[in-house]
Every structure is written in C-alpha cells, then in structure tokens.
C-alpha cells in the first residue's frame, strides 16, 4: 500500500525559495496526473478599501484579467481556454488570491499570463464597466440570499467598530463610487512582489517550477508598494445582540449565531478547532446537526464553523429553517451552546475527532489544489515545512480540559451575536 506519511508534504519534498525581490515560492511534485496547479496570494484585500469605496480590492482583482499591455480580454481568455487552462483572481479581507491550472505542457502559458496580469494590467474602460454591471448584479442577487445576508449581518454585529464588520464585496453605492483612477492607484500601491507567496504543485520538478517563476517574476520591482496597515484592537460584544434582516417572499430563513474565535496563530486554535468539530461538524454535523436536524427535523443544514485567520476569528452556527421555526431553532442552538460550555466534551468525543482530523489528512491533500493550498497555509501562518507530518502529534496533544477552557474563553451563551435573514 502507498504509505500515509510519504503522501503528506514535508521538508524533504517541498522546495522553498525566497527571491531577492521578496516573492516566496513553494513547489512540490506530483506526477500522478499530467496537470499542474498554481495557487498564490499577496496583501491586497478589502481591508485596504476606503469606507466609501468598499469593493475596491475585489474590483481590482477581477479587473486584472480584463486586459494588459500585451493582451486584451478576449485574447487572455482565448489563450487559456483554448488549452483547457484557467487562471483568475479573487479577493478576501486580508489577501488577494490568484492562481490557475493547466495540463503541464501549458505551464509556460499559465506563468506568462500570471506575470502579465500582475504587472501590466490596463483597466480598459469598457471592460471595467462590464465588470461593474456584473458586480452590481452579484450584489442584487446577494441581497436576495438569506444565507449571505445573515452572514453579513453577523459580521456587522460581531465586529462593530472593527474593519472586519465591512463587506469585502461592498454595496451598490460603494461599487458605483469606484473610478478608473481608484483601480489604477490601488494596483500601484498594493500589487508588488513583497509579501507575495506562490505555490506550484503538479507534474513538474520543483526546482524547474521555481526557476520558471523566477524567470517571469524575479525582475519585478515596485517601489511604490505599501504595506498593509496593522489591525485595530477588537472588543467582543458585552451582551447578546440580535438582529433580523428582512427579505420578503422567501420560503426559508437563515440563522448565523455565535461569537468571536481565536486567530489561526493562537495556541487555542487547535483545541477550538477540535471542539468545533465536536460541536457542529463530526459525523452528520456534530451535536448541532444531531439536535437541530436529526432529532428535531428543523433544518436540512445545521452546523458550526470556526473561521480563524490573521485577525480575530469567528465561531458560529449556521442553519436554514422554515421562517415559522426561527425562534425555536435559535433557542435550541443556544441551549446546545450552553451545554457545550457548561459540560464540555467527553474523552470519547475528543478521541473521535482527533482520529477524524488525523485520518482525513491524506484525503484533503490528495489533489494538486489541496497540496498547493496547504503550502500557502504553511507559509501564511509560519507553520513549518513539516507541519503536516507533525500534525498528528499536535492534534493528539489536545486534552478534554483544553477544549473546555477554549470553549469558555470564546463562547458565552449570555453574550451571543444572533443574526437572521428571511421574511
């Protein structure tokens, strides 16, 4: 049988290089399929948007694929799609992400498109306006989505006064306010080699892959590149806050309720993550799924999620219920959260989730995309190249007491944020 350990990335098979201009490259080979994936990020997320121009970072990231000095929009996509390749950008709160995939024979094209769109975008006005119309339609569709609107409301309440309370996609009026100059200026100030991390995984020797990236991006300099500002302090809510966002004519309402959570780099991340698994993931969505779906039949989906990144995290339960059951479901979830922090978890529950975390690693790292994502994770949170090999020990070191203590640090049933959306 193929060995589990050998299948996980580690220091002996991840090739990591830091280029003089600041770009960090990570590569790992996988010759099982004739394909290759690029996955990357840089510090150019929505955090950098002015309040009145929310959506700017998102707009810039999408506009990069709309034309460069060498290729117009149709030429860019024609080259990619003609060979079954894809490449694109997206934007989150802290980072803009980019990447793509192709047959390995077309990797040079993928790299060329990456280098071209990063460095030479032209933001053609007609394309920018088409993109704006698409973004505005996306926002109109979002306004009708009970799950999206409950999540946005949750962030507004939980992170009140903190930039995490804002929408990375913006709002119709802020997207309307963004000008061509704004796009160009944002690109000039925040797109550059410093802080950029690129991973390449697939049917190519790592040294060769790294050399290829260096060839196309090693000479890039941007002296105007600015660093992202530090995050302000976050103060969690001191009492329960509840808000309903009305959307008429819907047959289902969404609930997003919970509290803040640890940062990815906090020691509490692993106990919180295991605890979250017990609370609302393990098996058919953990304790929450058991109570809300299996026992009460109140929802098709009911689970908990731990969102842990650079700054203060969020720890919440999401469920979609009939509008008539909104209160009943909210109360059930509240009781379950209370039971979780009052009584903690059993040794058996912890052992189950530990086995789950360790056992599922090979599956999550099977595809090129999965490995490329894990390499970015290693770099972003400074986990060490052997992180996934040490992972079983890190998981198994967590105790029942650690989980309980972490739960009590973050979840207080008397201080919950409860956001709902629906009729």
């Amino acid at each position, binding site marked *: *049988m*193929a*060995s*589990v350990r050998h*299948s996980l990335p580690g220091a002996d098979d991840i090739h990591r290089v830091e280029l003089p201009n600041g770009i960090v490259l990570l590569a790992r080979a996988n010759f*099982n*399929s004739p*394909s290759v994936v690029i996955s990357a990020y840089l510090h150019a997320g929505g955090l950098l948007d002015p309040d009145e121009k929310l959506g700017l970072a998102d707009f810039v990231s999408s506009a990069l694929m709309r034309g460069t000095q060498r290729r117009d*929009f*149709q030429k860019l*996509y*024609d080259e990619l*799609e*003609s*060979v*079954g*390749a*894809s490449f*694109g950008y997206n934007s989150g709160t802290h980072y803009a992400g980019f990447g793509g*995939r192709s*047959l390995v024979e077309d990797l040079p094209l993928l790299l060329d498109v990456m280098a071209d769109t990063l460095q030479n975008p032209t933001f053609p006005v007609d394309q920018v306006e*088409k993109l704006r*119309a*698409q973004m505005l*339609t996306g926002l*109109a*569709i979002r306004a*009708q*989505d*009970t799950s999206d609107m409950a999540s946005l409301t949750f962030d507004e309440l939980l992170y009140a006064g903190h930039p995490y309370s804002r929408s990375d996609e913006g709002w119709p009026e802020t997207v309307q306010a963004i000008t061509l100059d704004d796009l160009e200026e944002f690109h000039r100030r925040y797109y550059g080699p410093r802080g950029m991390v690129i991973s390449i995984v697939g049917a190519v020797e790592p040294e060769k892959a790294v050399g290829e990236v260096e060839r196309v991006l090693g000479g890039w300099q941007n002296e105007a590149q600015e660093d992202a500002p530090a995050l302000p302090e976050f103060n969690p809510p001191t009492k329960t806050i509840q808000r309903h966002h009305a959307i*008429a*004519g*819907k*047959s*289902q309402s969404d609930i997003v309720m919970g509290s803040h959570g640890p940062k990815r780099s906090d020691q509490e991340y692993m106990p919180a993550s295991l605890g979250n698994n017990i609370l609302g993931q*393990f*098996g058919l969505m953990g304790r929450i799924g*058991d109570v809300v*779906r*299996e026992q*009460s*039949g*109140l929802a*098709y*989906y009911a689970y908990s999620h731990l969102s842990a990144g650079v700054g203060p995290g969020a720890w919440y339960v999401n469920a*979609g*219920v*009939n509008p008539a059951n909104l209160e009943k479901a909210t109360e059930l979830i509240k009781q379950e959260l209370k039971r979780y922090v009052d009584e903690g978890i059993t040794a058996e529950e912890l052992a*189950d989730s530990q*086995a*789950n975390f*360790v*056992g*599922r*690693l*090979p*599956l999550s790292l*099977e*595809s090129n*995309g999965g490995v490329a994502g894990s390499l970015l994770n290693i770099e972003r949170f400074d986990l060490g190249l052997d992180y996934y090999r040490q992972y079983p020990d890190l998981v198994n070191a967590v105790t029942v007491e650690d989980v309980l203590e972490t739960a009590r640090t973050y979840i207080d049933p008397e201080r919950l944020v409860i956001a709902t959306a629906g009729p």
Partner: protein
Amino acid sequence: MTEEIIQITLSNGMKVLLKEIHTAPLVSSWVWYRVGSRDEVNGRTGISHWVEHMQFKGTPEFPASVLDKAISREGGMWNAMTYLDWTTYFETMPADKIDLGLRLEADRMVNSAFDEQEVGSERMVVISEREGNENEPQFQLGEAVQGAAVRVHAYHHEVIGDMADLHSMTRDDLYEHYRTYYIPNNSIMAVAGDFDTDQMLERIKELFEPIPAGAEPARLARPEPEQKGELRLSVEGPGETTYVQACYRFPNASHADFFPLAVLDSLLAGPSNLNMFGGGISNKTSRLYRALVEKELAVSVSGGAQATIDPFLYSINMTIHPQRKPEDALSALDNEIKRIQDEQVNEDEILRAIKQARAIFAYGSENITNQAFWMGYAEMFADYNWFLSYLDNLAAVTPADVQRVAQQYLLPKSRVVGTYVPNGGEA
C-alpha cells in the same frame, strides 16, 4: 484515466468494477442503484431522494449514531446523491479502513429500519431542503421549465419531489420503494484506489454475494411525445434580477448524436465540467459569452446537458443585464444558433473542444473519488467504455456533424423558454 479495469458480475447479478490506483493511501467505494426520479409516479415524487435520506438512519447492526461516527472517526468522507436515473452512495477512506465502507453498504442494501418516527423527522428535513431550493429564483424557473418541457415522462418533476407528495407519502411507501429497487441485481459496485484486486474481490463476494437477487423492477414506459411548437412561460418572484432559461429536446447519452452535441455545447456555451470532483474551466470565449455577455445583454450565460438514459433536455441559462430586456438576449441567442446552423464550424474549433475535454479529465484524475465515480456513473446510462472512448468519439466529430445536430435539435418548435420576472422587494 485510461487504464483497464476489472469487471465481474456476482452470482446474484450485482456488477462489480475494480481499478487499482496506488497514488495515495486511499480507496473510494461506490454503490449505484438504478433508481431515481424516472421511476416515480405522481403521488410518489421525491420518493427516491427521501429513501436516500433514510439510508443514513441506520440498521440494527449500524444504528444511525454509530454509522456516521464510525466513518468520520476513520477519517473517511461519505455521501449520497439521487438523480433522474440513479441513486448512489460512496465512501472514500484511508486504504486500510475501507472495509467499514464495504460492510455498511452491504448491510444497508437490505437491513435499513425505516423507523416510523425517523421517517417523520426526515419528512421535515426534506421539506426544509425543498424550502431552501425554493429560495432560489433559478430553482423556481428551472422547475417550471422542466415541467413544461417534459409532460409525459417522469423526468417531468424535480428529483426532490413536489411539496404535496412530501407531505403525504408514508413510511410504507418509502419502505416498499426501498425493497423494490435496493437489490443486488439492480446495483453496481465500483471501487478504485490503493487495494489488491484479488483480496478486494474476495471481500466483496463475501459481503454481497449472500444477498439474494430480487425481482427485476418494472419500469415506467411513458416516452415523451414530440413537441409541436415553442412554449413560453414566466415565473414571478422577489428580487431585482431577471433570468431566462431556454430548454431544447436532447437525446439520451448512448445516442450517436450525443458527441457532436457535446462539441456543439462546448462551442456555444463553453465546455461542461465532466467531473463530479475536480474542476472545470472558465467560459469567457464561447460564442454565447461573446454574443451575450461581451455585448452586455446578459451578465452571465451557461449551457449544458446531462447524460441520461432517456432523452432529456439541453438548457441554456442567462442572467439578464440589469439595463437590458430578456427578449434582446433571447434574440441574440437565436442569432448565434442560426449562425451555427448556417455556417460550418472550423475544424480548429473541434480540436479546441477536444483539448479542453482532455484537460478536464486530467484534473479529474487527480483524485481517486472522481475516478471511482466515473466507473459507476458511465454504467448508469451506457458502460465504462463510454467514458474510455469519450475523447476518441469527440475526435471523430466533423464540422458537418456539428452543423447537422444544430439544425436538428436547436429548433424553436422543440424548446421551452422561461423567464423569471422579478417583482422588486415584494413577495
């Protein structure tokens, strides 16, 4: 993804397909049943999907709470899907743990309890699932168009079923459906991954061969009559966004025209993602994208057909630009269809479609679950050879074939056009 596989039929009629892949310490095991919404009469719509839900409610040997925990504890992933023609269950597990998946599938092929109380609570869960679907304008529109495009055949209704039937079906209805279709001679097992074929086959025989064959299920035979003219409909609901869906009659997957139509679809609406797990590619250079999105009549367009046992539908979906009218987008669609009917496509365009399909298959071969999926899936409407020869069949398509199928299938008289008309914020 072109290696040979082992195919064997057990003494009880269950077909087994095995493929060793030693790239990762994983095994993916799938059991497919030939039952889906095509087997449902009015009053029982949605029953196949609901039965699939009940298959997670436990047996005497594996009660519900034991079942899900056991799979998760071993680091496995499992799920099930119900569709027009089939229902399937899979487990992807660390290679040394797959026996659990095999045992549980053999067990729930015959021993599921269908406890009355569990049926009651699952009724509410399925209703909730449908309510979630109803929140989406495109579900509302798709259901209306499908219902109008298919009047006689059981492909008429959505897989999830009609609300009326979800309220009225009983435990005994569900159990009867289960006993009728969940028999070895109506199922296929497909396993791919890091195992030894002889050992795997021996274990499968040990677990599944004792299950007796059942009576071959009777099938509904209600072929859809020819459509005699274009149908138009509208659905009204909340929101600000207008959607248009145009559905054309499409042949079954084993029909020779399926491949020229796949090329046609690729040129018109971009290549369909052929993987259940693993990515597809973008669609920004297809003829419809250029004619609709680049011309700012729509903000998105997609198209596609499903591989089905009986003839079904090819659907083109457009999200209309906020400043434009749906009829403008529709007339641009008609122009593009006329162009592909009047002018032969270039040979290069066909080569492009083949290369795209080759890339998409390569992405799919990165994971074992997707490889196992294809083995069983192809058997549901053709056989595994359909998958193996897919690229060759695309390569055999000529520009004249594409023109012929465009002229034959993309006719206004055999289509339904539906529009979702938003009424602003009002209910």
